[in-house]
């Protein structure tokens, strides 16, 4: 069965450092992979999408890589700020019906 794993339940980092989050998957051939941010008690907010034929995507201080051989995506937050503290979810899509399969998320806490 499909399995999506995100690294460690929580990540604590110092302000200004880079946070690196991992999303690994098995038994899946996604057409694209997405990253969402979720604040406590709120719905997820879309951040970035990367397709299977893309290696890297950037948006402001965010960078996503996608390695379909390793079946892994890395999500980087550079120059992190306390406002970046949230849970980050990865989601995989097959592309045919826009259904997404979500990982459990990684909670990031940025200390000032």
């Amino acid at each position, binding site marked *: 069965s499909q399995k999506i794993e995100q690294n460690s339940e929580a990540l604590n980092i110092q302000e200004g450092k880079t946070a690196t989050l991992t999303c690994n998957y098995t038994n899946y051939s996604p057409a694209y992979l*997405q990253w969402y941010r979720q604040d406590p008690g709120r*719905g997820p907010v*879309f951040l970035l999408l990367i397709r299977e034929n893309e290696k890297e995507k950037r948006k402001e201080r965010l960078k996503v890589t996608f390695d379909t051989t390793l079946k892994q995506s890395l999500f980087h937050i550079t120059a992190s700020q306390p406002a970046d503290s949230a849970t980050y*979810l990865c989601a995989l899509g097959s592309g045919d019906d826009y*259904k*997404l399969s979500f990982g459990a*998320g990684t909670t990031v806490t940025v200390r000032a």
Partner: protein
Amino acid sequence: SQTIHQWPATLVQPVGSPLSLECTVEGTSNPNLYWYRQAAGRGLQLLFYSVGIGQISSEVPQNLSASRPQDRQFILSSKKLLLSDSGFYLCGAGEADTQYFGPGTRLTVL
């Protein structure tokens, strides 16, 4: 851009009572619509999705049901709630390769 409304924001219901959660979408036409449930510290579990009025696909067997009476309205229902139905319910609307989410409903079944 589209906006997704969900209500109520929180709900406490006794076991065996009925449930009706409503979701409406603004800013788009004929969206794919989704109902997810999120348990504490867990990812989103897809419950139902709909590609059009009256078209509902169920992903997980359970005592819940969904309906889409109008293009931008999606309803999640149950005739008799179970303790295990407690969770955070999210309505999603799909546009191309992106999904937008509503603010969610926190359901506690006692």
